[in-house]
């Protein structure tokens, strides 16, 4: 007989902790390998966690509603028979140094170093020099002597420091911010396969439309300042907290510039109209505009690869592959599943990949792999009716495309006639550290042209 640890997995890069939502088994129950053992929540996804082994649930180490760091042992299973994996259960890939799953697609530059660890400098090197200048005009932040001291002691490199959201004056990273980050960063990479099934129970009540924005919380000091019933004091859920942190971080890191182009989707609409029924019959799912847009983006990236990169200090890491993220709103907040190696896919392939991700997202069966390693992101706010939006870049990427609603609009044609077309506004938000207005505009226009001049003879 052997003991197998069940650990809190890492559900994506930069995830450092998870919350136990519900134990589906109790101590003493038999469990089968891969049988769902519990449900967890992290800021990226809620997931069901399958049992890493068959046996009896010997102990539950972490109760429901408790949040623990990734890699914490949350339960122990006693297996029958010999040869159970003695230590960490699950098929974790070769552990990476930090938060990046080893499952990131084959050609990741730099091997297993995730975005947070990349560029870790020897303690103190350039800490002084880098403080004011690093990251360009809005990226350079001031770090107090204490923060640098702690960073040095904890082995937090300068580029890593730059990623940490700051609550101090002007967004400064304070001692408190840094210590909180260090706490969260106690993680090697996960790589445990998880499957997700069904909606999360105990969806947070109230708090409006944003999924899990907050639950009422008891805070006497704030209550005094903001008394009921005029005010409600809510606790931000982990998902929202992470979103907040990521968004703040992104805005602090990248000087955002947005370009909006109008795109005439009529050709695409026509093509889709002609092929949709046949496609659905054959593939078993609907062909969406997303696939066309994805294809146009992939093509445009090949021409302007700089928008498909990331920044490290003074270096630009340009990727020769395209992991296309498609932002999706879910019950547990914004998720960005990624199509790996989109550059290799045809329109059909993209359509299949898009659908596959959509299905698994809805079914809450996304793997950590599915949500890591993106190099470019498309976000579709058109579904909400938004005409023009200005999205926030998904770090560590340097650009994001936001697509607005397609509406039928009268336009003036070449020969000065009025025609009804399907028009949408696309917004490219890009990082002006490395992408200027010219490049941004040209890249976006390339996408537009790819769509407007879509070859009606394209076979699916």
């Amino acid at each position: 007989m052997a003991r197998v640890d069940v650990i809190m997995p890492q559900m994506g890069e930069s995830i450092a902790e998870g919350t136990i939502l519900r134990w589906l088994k109790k101590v003493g129950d038999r469990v089968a390998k891969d049988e769902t053992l519990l449900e967890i929540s992290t800021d990226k996804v809620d997931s069901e966690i399958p049992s890493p082994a068959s046996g009896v649930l010997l102990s539950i180490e972490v109760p429901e509603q408790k949040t623990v760091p990734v890699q914490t042992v949350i339960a122990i299973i006693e297996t029958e028979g010999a040869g159970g994996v003695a230590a960490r259960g699950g098929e974790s890939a070769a552990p990476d140094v930090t938060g990046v799953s080893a499952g990131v697609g084959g050609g990741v530059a730099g091997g297993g170093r995730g975005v947070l660890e990349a560029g870790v400098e020897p303690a103190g090197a350039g800490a002084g020099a880098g403080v004011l200048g690093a990251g360009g005009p809005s990226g350079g932040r001031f770090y107090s002597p204490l923060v640098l001291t702690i960073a040095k002691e904890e082995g937090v490199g300068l580029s890593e420091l730059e990623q940490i959201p700051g609550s101090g004056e002007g967004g400064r990273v304070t001692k408190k911010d840094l210590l909180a980050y260090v706490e969260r960063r106690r993680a090697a990479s996960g790589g445990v396969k998880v499957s997700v099934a069904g909606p999360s129970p105990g969806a947070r009540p109230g708090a409006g439309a944003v999924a899990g924005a907050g639950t009422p919380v008891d805070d006497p000091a704030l209550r005094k300042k903001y008394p009921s019933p005029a005010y409600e004091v809510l606790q931000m859920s982990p998902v929202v907290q992470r979103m907040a942190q990521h968004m703040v971080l992104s805005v602090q890191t990248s000087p955002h510039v947005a370009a909006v182009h109008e795109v005439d989707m009529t050709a695409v609409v026509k093509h889709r109209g002609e092929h949709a029924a046949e496609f659905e019959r054959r593939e078993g799912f609907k062909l969406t505009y997303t696939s066309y847009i994805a294809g146009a983006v992939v093509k445009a990236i090949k021409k302007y690869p700089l928008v498909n990169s990331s920044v490290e200090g003074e270096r630009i890491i340009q990727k020769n592959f395209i992991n296309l993220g498609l932002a999706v709103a879910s019950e547990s907040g914004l998720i960005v599943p990624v199509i790996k190696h989109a550059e290799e896919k045809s329109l059909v392939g993209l359509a299949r990949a898009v659908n596959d991700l959509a299905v698994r997202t809805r079914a809450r069966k996304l793997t950590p792999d599915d949500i890591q390693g993106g190099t470019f992101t498309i976000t579709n706010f058109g579904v909400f009716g938004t005409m023009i939006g200005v999205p926030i870049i998904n770090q560590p990427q340097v650009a994001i495309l936001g697509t607005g609603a397609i509406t039928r609009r009268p336009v003036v044609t070449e020969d000065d006639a009025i025609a009804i077309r399907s028009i949408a506004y696309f917004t490219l938000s890009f990082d002006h550290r490395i992408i200027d207005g010219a490049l941004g505009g040209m890249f976006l226009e390339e996408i537009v042209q790819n769509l407007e001049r879509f070859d009606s003879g394209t076979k699916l």
Partner: protein
Amino acid sequence: MAATTYIEAIGRGMREEMERDSSVFLMGEDIGAYGGAFKATRGFLEKFGPARVIDTPLSETAILGAAVGAALVGMRPIVEMQFADFVSCGFNQLVTNAATMHYRWHLPVPMVVRLPSGGYIHGGPFHSVNPEGWFFHVPGLKIVAPSTTEDACGLMKGAVRDNNPVLYLESKYLYRRVKGDVSGEVVEIGKGMVRRPGDDMVIITYGSTVQQSLDAADRLAREEGVETRVVDLRTLKPLDTGLILDAVRATGRVLIVHEDNLTGGIGGEVAALIAEGAFTYLDAPVRRLAALDTPVPFSPPLEEFVLPSQDKIFHALQELRRY
């Protein structure tokens, strides 16, 4: 038993030292028959007699110089400057003679100079001075500044027993406003004290601003959940550098508060010590809150504008927290 006031505690310190050691005697203007301008020595003449409670002519130079002479040959005088403001009349005796004699002659000069100091009493420019800045940087003088009844008594005893010239700063504002217990224990010169625990920020202060700082810290804790340590220096010279740096290492955010004027005040020295000794522990620049660089004005709204207050300290704390 009724609580002792700050000024009574000073008196108790003097009285018990005089009872203990016959070489201790008092000199000053109006201290004998009149009991002192603030009544700090009421009853002393009756108890100890005119040989030990001496009413002097109006002559700060003579008073201070005579104290030096008497101390040189083995007595332990406690002299009173009627207001700290008048010590400048006898400045030379302190800085030329009292301060240098041990260094030059290896002879101790065990004298205490009582200095009723500070404002908040509508006294105007010449009855509100805080004189510590004038003497702080002169090698050879010690300076103490009690803020509680316990320390008023204890530091007086410590000062009398010290074999060096000790300037004893009494806050006039605290004379009858601070009441408390007095154990009669000697307080060692050179040791500060943490008056309020806390690890989020620290106020370093002394004298009249200690209570203001405690109030501001409590208010901040109530309103923002932040705990501010309050360090009462108690002795200004020599400073308790160890206590100061410990507090900085524990908290990383420092506010120095004193009633004395900002520029050239002791806060600058403390800030420099912190920069030298705890630079890598600082999460924010060291901040000082002190009186404006003006004489202390007479009319109450003017005086209020110039001097520190609990409210001003509170807002400085908030700013510091937000950095």
